[in-house]
C-alpha cells in the first residue's frame, strides 16, 4: 500500500515538475506578453496542483494535508486574479498583441 502511494506521489511530483518546465519553455518560446501568459498558466494550474497533490500523498491524512489543500485553493483563486491584473494593465497601457486576429465588429475603443 505504502509503496503504491509512494509511486503515485512520485508520478504526481515529477508530472508537476514537468509542467512547470514546459511552462518555462513556453515563456521563452512564445512571441509576446499576452501569449506568454498562456504558458505561465500551465505552471499556475497543472504544475502547482500536481506538486501539492504529490506532497499531500506523502503527508497522509493529517492537518498538514488540509493546509496543503487550502494552499491549492488559495493559489487557484489568486493566480487568475493576478494574471487578470497583469493582462488588464498591459492592455490599458496600450501594449499591442503580436499578429493578433480581432473580430471586425469589435467597438473602436476596445481595439488594441
Amino acid at each position, binding site marked *: 500500500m505504502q509503496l503504491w502511494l509512494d509511486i503515485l506521489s512520485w508520478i504526481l511530483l515529477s508530472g508537476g515538475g514537468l*509542467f512547470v518546465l514546459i511552462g518555462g*519553455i513556453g515563456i521563452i*518560446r*512564445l512571441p509576446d506578453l499576452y501569449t506568454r501568459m498562456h504558458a505561465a498558466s*500551465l505552471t499556475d*494550474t*497543472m504544475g502547482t496542483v500536481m506538486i501539492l497533490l504529490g506532497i499531500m500523498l506523502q503527508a497522509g491524512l493529517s492537518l498538514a494535508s488540509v493546509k496543503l489543500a*487550502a494552499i491549492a485553493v488559495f493559489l487557484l483563486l489568486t493566480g487568475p486574479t493576478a494574471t487578470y491584473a497583469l493582462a488588464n494593465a498591459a492592455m490599458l497601457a496600450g501594449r499591442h498583441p503580436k499578429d493578433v486576429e480581432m473580430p471586425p465588429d469589435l467597438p473602436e475603443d*476596445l481595439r*488594441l
Partner: protein
Amino acid sequence: MRLILTFVLLMLVWLLWSGFFKPLLISLGLLSCLFTLFLARRMGFFKREVFSLHLAYRLIPFWGWLALELIKSNLTVARIVLSPKMVISPTVVQLTAQSDDPVLQAILGNSITLTPGTVTLDDHEGELLVHCLTRQGADALLEGDMNRRVAALQRS
C-alpha cells in the same frame, strides 16, 4: 451581526492553522483578524451580499467540471509549446456574460483566465475581452459552454 460572525470564523481558522496557544501568537492573530475585518469593511464586503452558501454548494460540481477542462487545455497548450513549429493563431474575442451578477462575472473571468490558452483582458459591464492562443480555442470559448455553466450558478 455578519461582522461578528466573520470575526469568529477568522479567529477559528487562525487557531486551527497555527496550532499554538501562546498569548503573543493569539494577540497577533487577533490583530490580523481585526485588520482583515477593517479592510473587508472598507471594500464594502458587508454592504452587499457577496457570497452565499447556495453559491458555495453549486460551486463544487462546477469546480469538478472546471478541473477536467483545465487538464484538457493544459495538455493542448503543452503540445503547442513543445511542438517544433509552434503553430499559434492569437485571437482576441468579445464574450457577453450571460449573468449580470458581478460576482458571477468575476467567476467567469477568472475561470477563463485559469484555463491555459485563454486570458481575460477586460470585463466592462459584462462584456469580456478575451485573448486566446489559438483560433480553435476562441471558437470553443464562443460556443459558450463555460458561460452557460457559470450563469447556472445564479441563486434562484
